[in-house]
């Protein structure tokens, strides 16, 4: 009986695989930088330091949200596709097709928002996209079709990942249930592969919820006289949105499981606890979205309580398994803090800190006073900006085998300062009851809410500029330091 995990880099180091990964990551890193600039512009507008106008602000807000969610989830998918390529043979041509469709969708969204000023917000709650006279009809259709293109791109990628891994390990083995039988598994399932499977499976369900929603949106656009249930569509939209946002992070976790052991020189294998933890995560992630609807009292009350319980419980497998796993990988391992393990470690730290704020916000009693205040962008920017993004950059640095360690590491510390300063402004805003998604706070002429909001927005912009300088420095390190030797093994 073999327990060999059997990484096979003969496929993942093929030029075609590298080319398609460069296409994906090049696009994602470009989108990411542009979206940061949009974010800085928004914070400057909110502080009334810069004036782009109200329609442009909300168009930028919509594009920033869609762009960041789309880019990070796509980065996550690209990473788990690459991990898949280390163990199995996903279809490179399909991945190229997926990139093309994604790029087309991204261009469509840019046109709808920047040209058409489509500004319904990234989760575009029904019926706002159709009820607003201020953006043209064509921009609504282009936005919906573009979002459907993103969904097609993700679905193709996720289905092919599962197909490839099922071909390699057998479909019945992919969730790791063989670890619960008395007999030792005949072949070890790498922990990263289990997480890849969980991400792809949950991602398919989430993407299908989005597909159903956008088909209805498309129908509404074509037949404006039709009407649909607002609460039902709010549920399907948040099921889609919450799942893909969470999964982006879990895709990053898969990358940490896959690559961190090569730096710590310690094995990381599956056991029953890990299998159970990630299988329950699959359930929790699909039910935790109810916490987005706590202030929709018409939602069945049982689902509200389920939202808090599932949100709380989801913290246990994630921290008890992954955080302890990372800790035990790193502690006393003789690890050299080169860029990638440092970025991974800091990324996990950011994920946990953002997770704490998320659990706090998922408490119904607290959500009453935090919902749609700046506490919400505070927590998700924490686990994205100083969490997932660091893992994504750690992967990119490793992928190009960059030898510009000093520049990359210096840039990372600039991003740590800029990122944590940036999210701190959001947290303080949330604690001060400053609403989110406001072009400016001038109308809030009571208490000190307008002044607080404007000052924190300016502070946020300054820190975001520091983060941007860090990311530019990191991109330069990638360009200058890349080597022809893939450091993938």
């Amino acid at each position, binding site marked *: 009986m073999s327990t060999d995990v059997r990484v096979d880099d003969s496929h993942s180091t093929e030029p075609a695989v590298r080319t398609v990964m460069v296409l994906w990551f090049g696009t994602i890193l470009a989108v990411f930088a542009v979206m940061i600039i949009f974010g800085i512009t928004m914070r400057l507008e909110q502080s009334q330091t810069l004036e782009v106008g109200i329609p442009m602000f909300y168009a930028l807000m919509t594009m920033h949200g869609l762009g960041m969610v789309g880019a990070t989830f796509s980065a996550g998918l690209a990473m788990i596709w690459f991990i898949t390529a280390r163990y199995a043979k996903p279809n490179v041509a399909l991945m190229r097709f997926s990139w093309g469709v994604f790029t087309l969708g991204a261009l469509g969204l840019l046109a709808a928002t920047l040209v058409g000023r489509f500004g319904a917000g990234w989760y575009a709650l029904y019926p706002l996209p159709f009820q607003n006279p201020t953006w043209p009809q064509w921009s609504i259709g282009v936005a919906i079709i573009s979002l459907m293109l993103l969904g097609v791109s993700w679905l193709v990628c996720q289905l092919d990942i599962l197909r490839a891994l099922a071909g390699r390990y057998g479909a019945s083995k992919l969730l790791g249930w063989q670890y619960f039988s008395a007999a030792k598994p005949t072949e070890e399932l790498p922990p990263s592969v289990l997480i890849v499977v969980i991400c792809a499976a949950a991602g398919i369900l989430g993407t299908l919820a989005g597909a159903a929603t956008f088909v209805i949106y498309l129908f509404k656009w074509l037949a404006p006289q039709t009407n649909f249930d*607002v*609460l039902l569509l709010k549920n399907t939209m948040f099921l889609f949105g919450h799942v893909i946002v969470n999964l982006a992070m879990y895709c990053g976790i898969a990358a940490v499981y896959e690559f961190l052991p090569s730096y710590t020189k310690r094995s990381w294998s599956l056991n029953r606890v890990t299998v159970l933890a990630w299988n329950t995560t699959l359930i929790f992630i699909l039910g935790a979205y109810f916490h987005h609807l706590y202030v929709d009292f018409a939602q069945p009350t049982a689902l509200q309580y389920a939202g808090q319980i599932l949100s*709380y419980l989801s913290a246990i497998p994630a921290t008890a398994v992954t955080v*302890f796993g990372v800790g035990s990988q790193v502690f006393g391992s003789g690890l050299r803090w080169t860029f990638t393990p440092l970025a991974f470690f800091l990324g996990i730290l950011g994920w946990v800190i953002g997770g704490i704020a998320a659990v706090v916000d998922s408490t119904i009693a607290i959500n*009453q006073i935090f919902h749609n205040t700046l506490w919400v962008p505070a927590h998700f920017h924490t686990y994205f900006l100083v969490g997932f993004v660091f893992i994504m950059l750690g992967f990119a640095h490793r992928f190009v085998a960059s030898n510009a360690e000093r520049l990359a590491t210096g840039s990372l510390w600039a991003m740590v300062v800029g990122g944590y300063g940036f999210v701190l402004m959001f947290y303080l805003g949330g604690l001060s009851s400053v609403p989110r998604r406001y072009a400016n706070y001038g109308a809030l002429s009571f208490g000190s809410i307008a002044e607080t909001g404007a000052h924190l927005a300016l502070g946020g912009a300054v820190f975001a500029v520091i983060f941007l300088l860090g990311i530019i420095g990191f991109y330069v390190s990638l360009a200058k330091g890349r080597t022809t030797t893939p450091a993938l093994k």
Partner: protein
Amino acid sequence: MASIAGWVTLGATLIVVLVALFVAANARETIPGGPAAIYGVRKYYAGALLLGLLVALGASLPHTPYSALLETEPSMRVDVIGRMWSWEIHQAGDASGGPSPLVLPVGKIVEFAVTSADVNHGFGLYDDGGHLLAQAQAMPGYVNHLRHVFDLPGRYHVVCLEYCGLVHHAMLTELAVQ
């Protein structure tokens, strides 16, 4: 409540950062059996975390807006209709809105029946010092019932807390409580 949430977040974050610093500081040296030492405390950590979360669930779940203040009939029922980009607020049954400004009672239960005439809005109730007190979504086709007791007389503010289009940030009105 906001300050409790803030302190809990800060406290938990500091603990996590300290643990991370400890692990990072002990990464360079090779410590035989390092993983085993950490794994040994995992079950205690998971148990403590589970216990903490169960206590937090037990303490917080009874305090939800779905069960609050239901034992007594409200002193006043108020209809709230959000529409792009204004609030129509009047005593229940008084569809005209009435020429005189609505005055809500202090220290008594007021029930807001919140709905929308067009898109999703957020009925956010602020005191005059800028503190968010309570909120409910305003949805077309649904009525959300929010009960609240105003502890102090004075001026209160209704702020839209769900993005609803280009004038969202100025969709405000005032309430008087005496």
